[in-house]
């Protein structure tokens, strides 16, 4: 019988500065006492992209305030938490370092144990925080920067079944939106535009669909879309609204079909699993979600999809991953270092960049 644990989590590996506090025990739905995320996407939509908090200083200036806010919202002091968890990678090294330094400082000042958490493990274990999903389960992590299938076997055991060999789907949505003059973030805008479009009008490729396995490619789709756009713009001197909607619908259908077919194969390859979980910002897309629900149903399992604010970068997921580690009796060596690269599955050959598998080989 594991004790109820309370863990503070700190996340600063990319654009967001975040801190959260969770309480609970593995195997039961956790309680999120606070989840403070300070991001900048709303401020910088005009740029057609998030202006990242690349400066270590910018994260460092906000981190202690985020921790303070998270503790205040949780109604706790530092003395009340059992451990401090922090993203130690992978990510932008400046941001990761700021978080690690902040966590080490807090641990040194309070004597609390430290937990170095892999950012991807935070995403991968979120379905246990929100839905107490039992091991093993299949996870599709699909976001702006990531796209991979993971068989989650334990808090520290993940098998990568496949992933993108170039761009992530979120990036493809953002760049499609940019090509079509739709603004940022691209996902919701392309989805809204696709509603009135005809997905069958343009023939866009389904990269790697004809290939065995669970690897995916989205970079070529973006180039095909650009060709189609240019073919429409050249004679007309511009893009008609209806054309744009049809392009969005065609693009979205291509992404949906690739994700659906590869999910079907991943479920077959994963063997018996307790659920098919999807995490990451792209899971907010209604068409993608519907397709994945069908695939899960056909495979005799259910789709578990945490709420969007727990699918994107946040501190609560880092706290939960730390909580699972702590409950298993694990504490990190206080001398751990930030790691800009940190694959979850050390046994699998990397899917991207393995010599035989060029983007279109």
């Amino acid at each position, binding site marked *: 019988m594991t004790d109820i644990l309370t863990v503070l989590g700190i996340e600063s590996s*990319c654009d967001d500065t975040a801190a959260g506090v969770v309480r609970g025990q593995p195997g039961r739905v956790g309680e999120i006492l606070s989840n403070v995320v300070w991001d900048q996407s709303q401020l*910088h939509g005009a*740029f057609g*992209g*998030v*202006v*990242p908090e*690349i*400066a*270590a200083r910018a994260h460092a200036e906000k981190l202690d305030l985020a921790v303070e806010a998270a503790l205040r919202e949780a109604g706790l002091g530092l003395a009340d938490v059992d451990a401090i968890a922090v993203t130690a990678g992978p*990510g*932008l090294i*400046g941001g990761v370092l700021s978080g690690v330094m902040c966590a080490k400082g807090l641990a040194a000042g309070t004597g609390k144990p430290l937990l170095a958490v892999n950012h991807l493990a935070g995403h991968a274990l979120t379905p246990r925080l929100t839905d107490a999903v039992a091991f093993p389960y299949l996870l599709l992590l699909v976001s*702006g*920067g990531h796209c991979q299938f993971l068989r989650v076997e334990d808090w520290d055991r993940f098998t990568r079944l496949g992933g*993108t060999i*170039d*761009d*992530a789907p979120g*990036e493809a949505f953002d*760049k499609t939106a*940019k*090509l079509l003059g739709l603004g940022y973030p691209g996902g919701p805008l392309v989805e809204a535009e696709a509603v009135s479009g005809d997905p069958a009008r343009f023939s866009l490729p389904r990269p790697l669909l004809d290939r065995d396995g669970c690897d995916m490619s989205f*970079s070529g789709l*973006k*180039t095909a*879309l*650009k*060709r189609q756009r*240019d*073919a429409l713009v050249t004679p007309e001197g511009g893009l008609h609204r209806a054309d744009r909607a049809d392009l969005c619908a065609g693009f979205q259908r291509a992404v949906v079909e690739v994700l659906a077919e590869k999910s079907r194969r991943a479920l077959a390859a994963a063997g018996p699993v307790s659920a098919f979980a999807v995490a990451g910002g792209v899971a907010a897309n209604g068409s993608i979600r519907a397709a994945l629900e069908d695939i899960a149903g056909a495979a005799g399992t259910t789709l578990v999809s945490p709420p969007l604010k727990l699918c994107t970068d946040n501190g609560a997921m880092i706290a939960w991953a730390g909580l699972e580690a702590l409950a298993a009796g694990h504490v990190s060596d206080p001398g751990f270092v930030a790691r*800009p690269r940190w*694959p979850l599955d050390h046994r699998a*050959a*990397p*899917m*991207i*960049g*393995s*010599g035989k598998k*060029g*983007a*279109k*080989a």
Partner: protein
Amino acid sequence: MHSRLVLASEVETRHLAKAMLPHLKPGDCLLLEGPVGAGKSAFARALIQQQMAQDGTVEDVPSPTFTLVQNYETSRGPFCHADLYRLSDSTELIELDFPDVFESAICLIEWPARLGSLKPERHLLVTLDIRAEPEMRNITLRTFGQGWEWVQELEAATQFPTNVA
């Protein structure tokens, strides 16, 4: 000096990368220009993967759009693959180890206009664009500064249609 090559496919892009690779050394900077979807990342990935194949190493070469910079240690020296699109001003470059990295690594820089005054005078400008014909793209190589004489030899090495102006 500039060369314009017409490449018919990504396979040919990889052949070009293979021909360029033996000439590259730390301190060389390739600025990759072209619109979204032109193949900038594919070209950079081809170079890095070619080097890894020679080294017998296997590592991910993901898109640098979200991480801004991806660094690779190779037998030829470090590679720095950067996508500067999301940067708002060049002061942020200091945090990413620019301009020091220009001295120490083989740099492959997408959206190089963001470099502003940090742009190195000596560089190879690679301009990519897709053509209307399926799979076809233009790659234009323009050299700035000394030490790029080998670029002219690429015509023979690649066996692709090349115009040297």
